[in-house]
């Protein structure tokens, strides 16, 4: 068969189809017009027009995180690409597979300060897992396939492919994905068996073990979550997870301790502090989790499973390092545990659980229940009740509401919880919800939001309306950048510098202006009715304004620079000695 010549733009479309892409999130512009023209002339790829390029990446993240597929973004050169940067870094921090195609000025103009020119590969180099500038149309197909390979294999991440306009017009040869093999990038997927054996040995001899799992389990696919559940049940050990790992182990199981870290539960953090064997599966000892490093789980042996060797011994030195994919490692652990007929030390484990139950009895998520004002925790508890048994996906923005959502909403399956963990990007939730809703049109998708975060990407309501994505924007409106205010209260003498949300719109009218449904709850009695109405809307977006207690703070909290056993439970804990001076500088 003679080699078929296609234009660069046609090669892009064909490569995307061959990679199994069905949706692209993008925004057109001068430097990507040939690709938009090629998109116009086909019907297999659906394009979702966002209102800002940052949102295109977040939407693709929501799509990717909720499906396990690679999210695809298409933006123009210059401002199109620079607007996408925040989204790209967000995806890098949270290991979300994204391929972002950006237009570029024609090759002969590169470096000439041309109109809408930006050094996109230069700017995105530290914000991506990898990036490419394609100068030869005959290398285009290969590069695109490589981009998908790099984005989804190993520790997933965003990959940018920068496409000069002349390359999009030029004729070139297409090669299919199976002919492309990457020269260098071959992440280790299968772990070393000897390490697994070492790990199993440690686990079997543990007196006070704890599983500490992370987003790596979710990234390793639904099978990894099943295997994790199996291993945890088999061993009888307690399990906690990072923000990114929620859902990998069912929250309804008795072995679940809740999230750990700065706003994690008392029982999770104390289990970490007091454990003798820690089994880290796909988490990265992030500072939000470890607190004061020198007092992090003192006296424990640590096992760390991670596909990224650079995550191992980065912040915390571990005793058994297992490089590999979580699913493979878990499978091996189960197999060897069974083969060696291992059984945990039941007497010790019973004692350990007794201790944990005492910590649990502290009921650390309790809050001051009242009829006079809607507590944000109450609103989430009611939402949790109404979501029971339903097919739902939750996204969040960033701040207090995000932490409350992580504490109060239970996840029994992976890929149901989408939040900006590493970068902490306000404005993530709405576009991510749209991406998740596009992927799951019949499911309920709720963006747990704050009034300040919502304003950061609220233009995306337009996108949701256009594509009839009935996302629910559940605003816990406390008229403050709540987490900023909380820190100012704790660390800066309650001087609420610029953290008040002045000049807020009427969110109900805002919804109506877009042809959406707007709802508001101002009293405790109204909350249930509003949630019911919100969930009943299936054909358009809903903005829900829950007017919550403006003074409520998020607890428990381990202040920056403190150890896991130095937890503040509520406002009664004195903020004066909350944070040592060296902790003040920590974010």
């Amino acid at each position, binding site marked *: 068969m003679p080699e078929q010549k296609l234009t660069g733009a046609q090669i892009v479309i064909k490569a995307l189809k061959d990679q199994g892409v069905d949706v692209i999130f993008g925004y057109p512009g001068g430097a990507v017009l040939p690709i938009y023209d090629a998109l116009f002339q086909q019907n297999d790829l659906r394009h979702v027009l966002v209102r800002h390029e940052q949102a295109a990446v977040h939407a693709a993240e929501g799509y990717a995180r909720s499906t396990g597929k690679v999210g695809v973004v298409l933006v123009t050169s210059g401002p199109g690409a620079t607007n996408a940067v925040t989204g790209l870094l967000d995806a890098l921090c949270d290991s979300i597979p994204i391929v972002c195609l950006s237009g570029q000025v024609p090759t002969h103009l590169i470096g000439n300060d041309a109109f809408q020119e930006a050094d996109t*590969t*230069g700017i995105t*180099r*530290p914000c991506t*897992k*990898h*990036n490419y*500038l394609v100068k030869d149309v005959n290398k285009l197909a290969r590069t695109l396939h490589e981009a998908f390979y*790099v984005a989804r294999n190993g520790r997933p991440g965003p990959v940018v492919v920068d496409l000069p306009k002349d390359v999009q017009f030029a004729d070139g040869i297409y090669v299919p994905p199976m002919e492309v093999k990457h*020269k*260098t*990038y071959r992440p280790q997927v299968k772990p070393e068996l000897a390490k697994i054996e070492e790990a199993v040995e440690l686990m079997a001899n543990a007196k006070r073990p704890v599983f500490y799992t992370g987003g790596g389990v979710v990234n390793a696919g639904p099978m990894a979550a099943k295997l994790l559940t199996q291993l945890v049940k088999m061993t009888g050990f307690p399990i906690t997870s990072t923000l990114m790992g929620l859902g990998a182990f069912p929250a309804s199981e008795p072995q679940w301790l809740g999230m750990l870290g700065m706003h994690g539960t008392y029982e999770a953090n104390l289990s970490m502090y007091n454990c003798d064997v820690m089994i880290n599966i796909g988490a990265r000892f992030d500072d939000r989790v470890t607190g004061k490093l020198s007092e992090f789980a003192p006296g424990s042996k640590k096992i760390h499973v991670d596909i*990224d*060797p*650079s995550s*191992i*011994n*980065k912040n915390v*030195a571990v005793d058994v390092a297992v490089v590999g994919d979580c699913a493979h490692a878990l499978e091996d652990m189960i197999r060897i545990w069974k083969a060696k007929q291992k059984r945990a030390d039941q007497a010790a484990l019973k004692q350990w659980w007794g201790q944990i139950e005492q910590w649990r009895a502290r009921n650390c998520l309790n809050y001051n229940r009242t009829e006079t004002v809607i507590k944000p925790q109450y609103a989430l508890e009611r939402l949790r009740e109404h979501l029971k048994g339903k097919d739902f996906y939750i996204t969040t923005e960033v701040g207090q509401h995000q932490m409350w959502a992580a504490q109060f909403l239970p996840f029994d399956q992976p890929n149901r919880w989408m939040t900006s963990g590493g970068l902490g990007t306000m404005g993530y939730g709405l576009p991510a919800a749209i991406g998740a809703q596009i992927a799951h049109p019949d499911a309920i998708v709720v963006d747990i939001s704050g009034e300040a975060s919502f304003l950061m990407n609220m233009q995306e309501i337009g996108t949701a309306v256009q594509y009839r994505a009935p996302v629910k924007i559940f605003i816990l409106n406390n008229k403050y950048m709540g987490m900023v205010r909380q820190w100012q209260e704790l660390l800066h003498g309650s001087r609420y510098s610029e953290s008040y949300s002045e000049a807020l719109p009427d969110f109900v009218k805002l919804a109506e202006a877009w042809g959406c449904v707007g709802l508001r709850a101002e009293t405790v009695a109204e909350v249930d009715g509003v949630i019911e109405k919100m969930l009943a809307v299936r054909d358009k977006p809903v903005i829900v304004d829950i007017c919550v207690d403006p003074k409520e703070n998020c607890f428990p909290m381990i202040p920056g620079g403190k150890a896991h056993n130095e937890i503040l439970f509520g406002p009664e804990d004195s903020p004066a000695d909350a944070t040592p001076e060296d902790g003040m500088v920590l974010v």
Partner: protein
Amino acid sequence: MEEKIEKHTIAVLVDNEPGVLARVIGLFSGRGYNIESLTVAEVDNAGHLSRITLVTSGTRMIVEQIKAQLDRLVPVHKVHDLTDEGPCVERELALVKVAGTGDRRIEALRLADIFKAQVVDATLTSFVFELTGTTVQVDEFIGLMAQLGLVETSRTGVLAMSKGPTGF
């Protein structure tokens, strides 16, 4: 806590493609690692491979982190810690310009002879010496020339290779 600072020479085999050096340097600046010297040149024209030799320093944990981070870059083929992997040869090449007349000029030439430096340019009032040696030798030579009319220095930074028959 072990906080001893170690100096390591690391060789990195990379695809010779645009931006690869920027990736390596960006990694060091972005993560706050030290680069004491860095050299790069293509070593395999047909395979489009370049070899980067870099000298860095840090605690053991940092050095291990540097190697893991380098290895994670997509265009990186291999990372070798020559300091860790047994004896290696380290060499630097320097060009050293010295201007002067009379005794100082004669002394510079005599010292160059001792250090086995070549004269690669000569005028009536100046020399350019070419010197190959370890970093310490080059430092010593330049230190001496500083007292004899040193005008400028250009150094390659360290090149290194493991001893023995096995290759990269």
